[in-house]
C-alpha cells in the first residue's frame, strides 16, 4: 500500500511545511516539488492498479478501482502543472502589491490542503469520509477566493462558503439516510456499513424508498459543488474573483471530484431501485445546466467569469451523459471528465497570463494578444477551440460520443443538445476573436509566462482526440462496466 500512503501523506506534509516557510519564493518551489512528488506517487499507484487490479487498503478505508485511479492521477497531474504555473504568476501578483507575504504563506499551505482534500475524497471507500473531504475542499479554498481582499472577492468567498456549506449539508443528510438504510439490512456490528464497497455489494437489499429520498438529498448536496443550475450561483463568482491558479484547480478538479461523488452514489441507488429515477434526475439537471450556461456565455464581460460558465456547461453535459447511463454514454462522460479537466485548467493558466498582460479581466480591454505575446495568444486560441469542441481535440471526441448515445436512447433530446453546443460555440468564439486578433491597445506589455503546462495539457487533449492509449481505455471500459451495470461496450 506504499504508493497510496504517499499520495495522501505528501500533500498533508506539504500543508504543515508550507505553513512554516515565510519566504514566498522558496515556498513556491517547495509547492512545485511536493506536487510533483505527489504526482509521481500517483503514477506509481496507477501502475500497481494496472498490473494487479483494484486495491483495498488493509483497514478497508481506501479503495482504488478503475473509476478513481485515473482521476487520482489526473488530479495529481493538474495539481502539479498548476503549481508550476502558480510560482511565477503569484510572484508577479506579489510584485504588483495585490497580495502580501503573510497571505502567500496561507496560499501555499491551503493549495496543498486542497489537493489533499480532493485526493482523500477520491481514494476513500467510506461515504462519510467522502463527505468530510468534500467539505474540507470548500474550507481550504474559501480563504483563497478572498485572497485579494477586494470587496468583490470577499463577497464571492462569502457566497461560496454559505451556498456550498448549506448545499453540502444536504449531502450529509443523504449520507445519514444511506447509513440508515444500510444498517437496517447489514447491522452495525462491523462498523463498515458506510463503506462504499460493502454498500455496493448489498445494494439490492437496501430499502428503495429510503434510498430514493437519500439520492435527492445527495444530488442537491454534491450537485451544488458540481455547479448544476440552479445551484450554480457561487461558481462564476468564486472562479472569477480568486487568484487564477485557484480558478484552474477549482474548475479542472473540484467539479470533477464532486461529480465523481455523485456517480458513486448513483451506482448504489441504481442497484437498489432498479428504475431510472436517479438517471432521469441527473439528465434533467444536466441538460438544464448545459443550456442555461451556454446562453449565459454570451453576456459575459469578465474573461474568467465567461470560462467558468463554460465549466458549468461542460459539467452539465457530463451529468447528462452519466444520467443516460448506457455503456456508450458512460464511456463518453468518463472521457469528457478527463479532457475537460485538462483543457479547462490549461485555459485558466492562459487566461491568467492574458489578464496580467492587459492588466484587467474585462474582455473588452483584452485585445490583440497574438501581437503582444504570441504564445499566450495562440494558447488561448487553441484552448478555446479545444473546449468549444473543435476536432481533432479530445473534447470533440467525447461530445460526439455523447451525441451518439443520445441519438440511440433519447432521439428527440439530440435537438436541444445540438442547439446548446452551437450556442456555446458561438458564445465563446464571439468573445475570443477580438481578444486574440484585434489591435493591442497602447501600454499592453509582455509578462513572464510559462506556457509549458498549457502546451503539455493541450498536447494530451489532442492525443486523446486522436487515439486513447490502451491502459486508459482499459480503465474507462472497466469503469463503464462498473457504472452502467455489467454492460460491455
Amino acid at each position: 500500500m506504499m504508493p497510496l500512503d504517499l499520495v495522501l501523506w505528501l500533500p498533508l506534509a506539504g500543508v504543515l511545511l508550507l505553513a512554516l516557510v515565510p519566504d514566498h519564493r522558496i515556498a513556491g518551489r517547495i509547492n512545485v516539488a511536493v506536487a510533483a512528488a505527489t504526482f509521481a506517487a500517483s503514477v506509481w499507484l496507477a501502475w500497481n492498479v494496472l498490473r494487479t487490479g483494484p486495491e483495498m487498503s488493509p483497514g478497508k478505508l481506501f479503495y482504488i478501482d478503475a473509476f478513481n485511479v485515473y482521476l487520482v492521477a489526473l488530479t495529481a497531474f493538474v495539481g502539479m502543472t498548476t503549481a508550476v504555473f502558480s510560482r511565477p504568476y503569484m510572484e508577479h501578483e506579489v510584485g504588483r502589491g495585490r497580495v502580501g507575504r503573510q497571505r502567500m504563506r496561507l496560499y501555499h499551505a491551503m493549495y496543498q490542503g486542497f489537493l489533499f482534500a480532493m485526493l482523500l475524497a477520491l481514494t476513500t471507500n467510506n461515504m462519510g469520509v467522502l463527505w468530510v473531504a468534500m467539505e474540507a475542499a470548500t474550507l481550504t479554498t474559501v480563504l483563497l477566493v478572498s485572497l485579494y481582499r477586494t470587496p468583490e472577492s470577499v463577497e464571492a468567498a462569502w457566497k461560496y462558503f454559505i451556498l456550498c456549506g448549506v448545499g453540502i449539508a444536504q449531502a450529509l443528510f443523504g449520507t445519514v439516510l444511506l447509513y440508515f438504510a444500510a444498517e437496517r439490512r447489514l447491522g452495525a456490528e462491523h462498523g463498515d456499513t458506510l463503506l462504499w464497497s460493502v454498500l455496493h455489494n448489498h445494494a439490492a437489499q437496501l430499502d428503495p424508498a429510503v434510498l430514493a429520498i437519500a439520492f435527492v438529498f445527495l444530488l442537491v448536496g454534491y450537485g451544488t459543488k458540481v455547479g448544476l443550475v440552479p445551484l450554480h450561483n457561487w461558481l462564476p463568482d468564486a472562479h472569477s474573483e480568486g487568484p487564477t491558479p485557484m480558478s484552474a484547480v477549482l474548475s479542472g478538479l473540484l467539479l470533477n471530484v464532486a461529480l465523481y461523488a455523485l456517480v458513486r452514489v448513483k451506482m448504489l441507488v441504481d442497484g437498489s431501485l432498479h428504475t431510472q429515477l436517479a438517471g432521469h434526475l441527473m439528465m434533467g439537471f444536466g441538460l438544464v445546466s448545459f443550456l442555461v450556461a451556454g446562453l449565459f456565455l454570451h453576456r459575459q464581460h469578465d474573461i474568467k467569469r465567461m470560462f467558468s460558465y463554460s465549466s458549468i456547461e461542460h459539467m452539465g453535459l457530463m451529468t447528462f451523459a452519466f444520467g443516460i447511463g448506457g455503456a456508450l454514454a458512460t464511456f463518453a462522460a468518463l472521457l469528457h471528465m478527463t479532457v475537460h479537466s485538462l483543457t479547462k485548467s490549461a485555459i485558466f493558466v492562459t487566461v491568467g497570463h492574458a489578464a496580467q498582460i492587459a492588466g484587467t479581466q474585462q474582455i473588452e480591454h483584452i485585445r490583440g494578444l497574438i501581437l503582444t505575446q504570441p504564445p499566450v495568444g495562440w494558447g488561448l486560441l487553441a484552448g478555446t477551440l479545444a473546449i468549444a469542441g473543435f476536432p481533432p481535440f479530445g473534447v470533440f471526441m467525447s461530445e460526439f460520443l455523447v451525441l451518439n448515445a443520445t441519438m440511440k436512447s433519447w432521439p428527440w433530446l439530440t435537438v436541444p443538445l445540438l442547439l446548446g453546443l452551437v450556442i456555446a460555440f458561438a458564445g465563446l468564439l464571439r468573445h475570443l476573436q477580438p481578444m486574440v486578433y484585434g489591435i493591442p491597445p497602447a501600454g499592453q506589455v509582455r509578462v513572464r509566462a510559462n506556457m509549458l503546462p498549457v502546451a503539455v495539457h493541450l498536447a494530451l487533449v489532442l492525443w486523446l482526440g486522436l487515439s486513447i492509449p490502451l491502459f486508459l481505455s482499459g480503465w474507462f471500459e472497466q469503469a463503464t462496466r462498473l457504472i452502467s451495470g455489467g454492460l460491455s461496450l
Partner: protein
Amino acid sequence: MHLSALNLYGQGILVSAALVLFTSFVMLAQTRIQPLIYAFAWQGALLSVTTALVALVSGHSHLYISALLTFGLKALLIPWMLYRMARRLHIQREVETVSHPSLIMLAGAVLVVFCYYVALPVAQLSTLVTRNTIAVSMATVLLGMLLMITRRAAVAQVIGFMSIENGLFFAAVASTYGMPMIVELGVAFDVLVAAVLFGIFFFQIRASIDSLDIDRLNRLSEKAE
C-alpha cells in the same frame, strides 16, 4: 408509538427533542444578536442531553463521546467564539428588522408538518427508540435554512448554518444512533474549522463594506452593464 407505552427515559428523549425544536423557533423569532447566540448555545446543550439520554437507553457507549463533543463544541466553544466576536465588532446589542415575522413563524410551523410527512416512510422502517424524533431532526435542518434565508446579518446567517449542522447531527443520532466514530470526528473538525473561518470572514466583510449586512454584498450579479 404511544407515549404512554414509552418508559421514562424514552419520554425524556422526546421531551428534550421537542425542546431542541423549540429553540429553533426561538432563534427564528429572536432579532437581537446576543440572545440569538444564547438560544443557539441552549440548542447545543439540549442536543447533547438528548444524545446522552439516547446513549443511556440504547447502551451505545460511543454516543456519550458524541454527546460530550457536541456539548463542548456547540454549547460552549462556538457560542463563546461568536459572543466574543460580536463584542469585538460591537454588534451584540444590534436589533435586526425582520420583515413579516409572524409569516416566518407560520412558515416554520408548516415546515415541521412537512417534515413529519416526508419522514413517515423512514420512521415506519425504524425500530429504534428515537424513531419519533427523526422528523424533529429534519425540521431543525429546515428551520436553520429558513433562519438563513430570512436574515441579513452575517452573524445570524452563521447561527443558521450551525443550527443546520445541529439538525444533521441530531438526524444521525435519531435514525442510526450516530455515524461511525471516524466520520463524526471528521464532521466535528470541519464544523470547528468552519466556525473559525466565519470569524475571519466577519472582519473581512466589515473591512470591505463597513457593515455586516449581507444585503449590501451585491456587487457581483448577472446584470447587463
